[in-house]
């Protein structure tokens, strides 16, 4: 770790000049102001973390910096010269290279080519293969990596591919390196290997912008942190001025709700509910690279909140319970009977329902009507030979449109034309009419208006009252605290704590658990 003295102080007037300075960056998507006057400074030889939750504007900022999206306003100065990138190539030429979470290399060509393609050494107009291999080998050796440069990229692990991507990025332009969640799918050793490389590059004077969900990694590796929230700059801090808790606090939101505001908390009777055989019991359920083994009991009529930062493994927990992803090990029993949930069909047959956080890509079929989307799950369970009568369909659609106040109240409207909140309600209606025993809601209130949000929260409480179990995933602590009987906290793809949501669970305590992984 760099000692604080080598960290360039942004306040120093006579200090080193930033290699990249963005100011007042504004980016407008249709109907949405994604970035509103965001600033970012990167100094040579520092590792700078960019943090923020869903919708903070992280990925948009990176895309502006790397030329994927042009900015609508603000200035971008690289090495003292103003720039406006129209495509990734221009950004690369100005000295900004990016390594993405999904390795963006070609698996079907050799390591050497992946490092040097587009810049191959040539002789008489043809590629000079031996010079190319030699150059690639040199680049790898410089960074203490031992790889056969002639092997296909596909033959290496994801971690090694990530390292190769970094070697390429640095060789393309060595001023600014953007690492966009490079560690998401790596194990501990692989992360250590990656960090060694990053530190080596930092010592060579490269400015590194590091985007991650892992709080520990920020404190382990980074010198300074820029936090974004809701498309705006929350602040820029030397790492020494932050603790995990204060960092998470700045990401999630400055003023936490007080206990008084949580008066609607529905934990009364939690102890009664938690007695007896649980509806669902998961033991050491795991999927490699996605979620470490976890235990979870869900009783009838119980609301379990899953709290944690974006990318902490909340969705992965839910997907295993729904059979959307196959588990590698562990077991699940429903009402004491051991079951294997290999596909969503198995889970649905057992009375489990799952509203995905990606409404558009994994939830709704945009071309179909509201009515069709509402009856889809029920119809799928019946099979195509036993159709619901049209009158029944109309009645169900009408009932749920009314019950959830879906607008426009037209069962024949195409669902893609509905607003986010109404789409969410359609998705809810689809599963509610199957009368599930366990309803999994993944970020059901994200990106929808206040009114719809309150209605969905009320609905969750009512369902629990009627005996339905709910697994409620949300990034908003207030919401989780208000609705849950018990709260499972996730951090770095691990379930670190399960708290009974009584009066001792304060927002601060939850925040600390999320940030540090220990309940103290």
């Amino acid at each position, binding site marked *: 770790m760099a000692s604080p003295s080598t960290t360039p102080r942004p306040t120093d007037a006579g200090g080193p000049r930033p290699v990249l300075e963005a100011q007042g960056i504004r980016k407008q998507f249709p109907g949405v102001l994604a970035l509103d006057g965001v600033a970012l400074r990167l100094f040579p030889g520092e590792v700078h973390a960019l943090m923020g939750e869903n919708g903070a504007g992280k*990925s*948009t900022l990176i895309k502006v910096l790397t030329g994927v999206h042009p900015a609508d306003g603000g200035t971008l100065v690289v090495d003292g010269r103003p720039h406006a990138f129209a495509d990734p190539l221009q950004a690369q030429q100005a000295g900004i290279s990016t390594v993405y979470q999904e390795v963006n290399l070609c698996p079907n060509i050799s390591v050497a080519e992946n490092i040097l393609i587009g810049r191959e050494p040539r002789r008489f107009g043809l590629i000079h293969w031996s010079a190319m291999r030699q150059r690639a080998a040199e680049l790898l050796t410089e960074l203490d990596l031992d790889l056969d440069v002639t092997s296909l990229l596909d033959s290496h692990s994801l971690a090694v591919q990530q390292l190769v991507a970094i070697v390429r990025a640095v060789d393309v332009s060595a001023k600014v390196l953007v690492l966009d969640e490079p560690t998401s799918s790596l194990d501990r050793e692989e992360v250590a290997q990656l960090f060694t490389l990053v530190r080596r590059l930092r010592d060579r004077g490269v400015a590194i912008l590091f985007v991650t969900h892992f709080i520990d990694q920020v404190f382990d590796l980074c010198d300074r942190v820029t936090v974004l929230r*809701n498309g705006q700059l929350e602040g820029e801090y030397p790492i020494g001025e932050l603790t995990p808790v204060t960092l998470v606090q700045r990401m999630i939101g400055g003023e936490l709700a007080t206990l008084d505001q949580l008066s609607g908390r529905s934990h009364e009777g939690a102890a009664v509910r938690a007695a007896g055989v649980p509806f669902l019991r998961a033991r050491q359920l795991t999927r490699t690279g996605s979620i470490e083994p976890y235990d979870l009991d869900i009783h009838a009529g119980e609301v379990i909140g899953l709290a944690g930062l974006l990318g902490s493994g909340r969705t992965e927990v839910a997907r295993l319970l729904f059979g959307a992803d196959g588990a590698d090990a562990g077991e699940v029993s429903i009402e004491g009977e051991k079951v294997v949930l290999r596909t969503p069909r198995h889970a649905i047959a057992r009375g489990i329902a799952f509203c995905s956080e990606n409404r558009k890509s994994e939830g709704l079929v945009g071309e179909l009507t509201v009515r069709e989307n509402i009856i889809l799950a029920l119809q799928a369970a019946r*099979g195509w030979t036993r159709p619901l009568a049209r009158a029944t369909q109309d009645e169900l659609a009408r009932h749920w449109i009314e019950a959830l106040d879906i607008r426009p109240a*037209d069962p024949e409207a195409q669902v893609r034309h509905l607003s986010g909140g109404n789409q969410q309600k359609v998705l809810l209606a689809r599963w509610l009419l199957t009368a599930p025993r366990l309803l999994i809601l993944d970020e059901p209130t994200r990106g929808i208006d206040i009114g719809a949000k309150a209605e969905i929260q009320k609905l969750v409480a009512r369902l629990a009252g009627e005996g339905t179990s709910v697994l409620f995933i949300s990034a908003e602590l207030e919401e989780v605290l208000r609705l849950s009987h018990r709260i499972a906290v996730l951090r770095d793809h691990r379930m670190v704590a399960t708290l009974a949501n009584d009066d001792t669970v304060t927002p601060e305590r939850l925040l600390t658990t999320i940030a540090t992984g220990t309940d103290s």
Partner: protein
Amino acid sequence: MTTQPAKSEAAGGVGRRPAGHRLLWPALILLALLLGNLAFHHDFFSVRVRDGHLYGSLIDILQFGAPLILVALGMTLVIATRGIDLSVGSTVAIAGALACGHISTAARPGSVATMLTAVALALGVALALGLANGFLVSGLGVQPIVATLILMVAGRGVAQLITDGQIITVTSAPYKMIGGGYWLTFPFAVLLAAGLVALTAFVTRRSALGMLIESVGGNPAASRLVGIRAGGLLALVYVVSALCAAVAGLMISSNVSSADGNNAGLWIELDAILAVVVGGTALTGGRFSVGGTVLGALIIQTLSTTVYTLGVPPETSLVFKAFVVIVVCLVQSPVFRAKVLRRRRTTTPRSHTTAGAAPQQQEAGA
């Protein structure tokens, strides 16, 4: 529940509007083509009754278009699942060859029983071929275009193997009925095609089949999470496609009372794809329209007839088809629409997005 009649009436009103809109363009194109023909031949629309049979250019279009309508019908379902079936032309040839081969070697070629066994034989083999395609696509996960390419290549060879490279001529009155006969003054082929179209429309819209197919084609990921068994549906559409092609093959060979392994159904897969696309079903899957496909097939057939009546070599209709393909695909291409119709886009209101929807949209755009 008491308000249901009023409600469903309102729902029907809103629901029917987009469907009508979708059929509007194909219908207008067909009408324009027919009127264009009328300008050249003033008796183009006249339909006469001779010997108790209907005759006339419009009847010809229907009769010659019947096999294409059938092949396009099966293709519609396949395309709705985001697939494509290139093997239908070969299936047409194989079905015709099998039926004629069976009849020509049968003891009593003119009997109804022989005809029925011939038809059953052709349909049975088509069923197997469809299952093979379906297995490759849904079982092994081979891309549809690649999976059906195999049968497209091998199928013509198989058809020629059955006919021994000859053109098998048959004389069987019952068999002739399928593609060349008349029933209640109408060409039997037209009635058969109409019946199968109605059956398909009925089954897909009255059962949940149509909706589930549209769901699988429209959003495969969501369909999996909602518990739809996509594998069976995929296999089913390829089987239906092969069966439709087989019936079309029977019609074609029956009409000319012979089977030609080499030329029967040549390029019909391309005409069928064209008919489906012209009829308003997108190659990217999802919503399909059986009515649109029928209109599309009639447009293609009318185009061929028009070229023929214009006196230019009939083969040059390929040039027209090429332009139709390109124009239709460009119009369906979102990129093309964004580029060419940009001015219209920018004026659409954006006010419907609430402030709360911002993060969601941003994540989607990012």
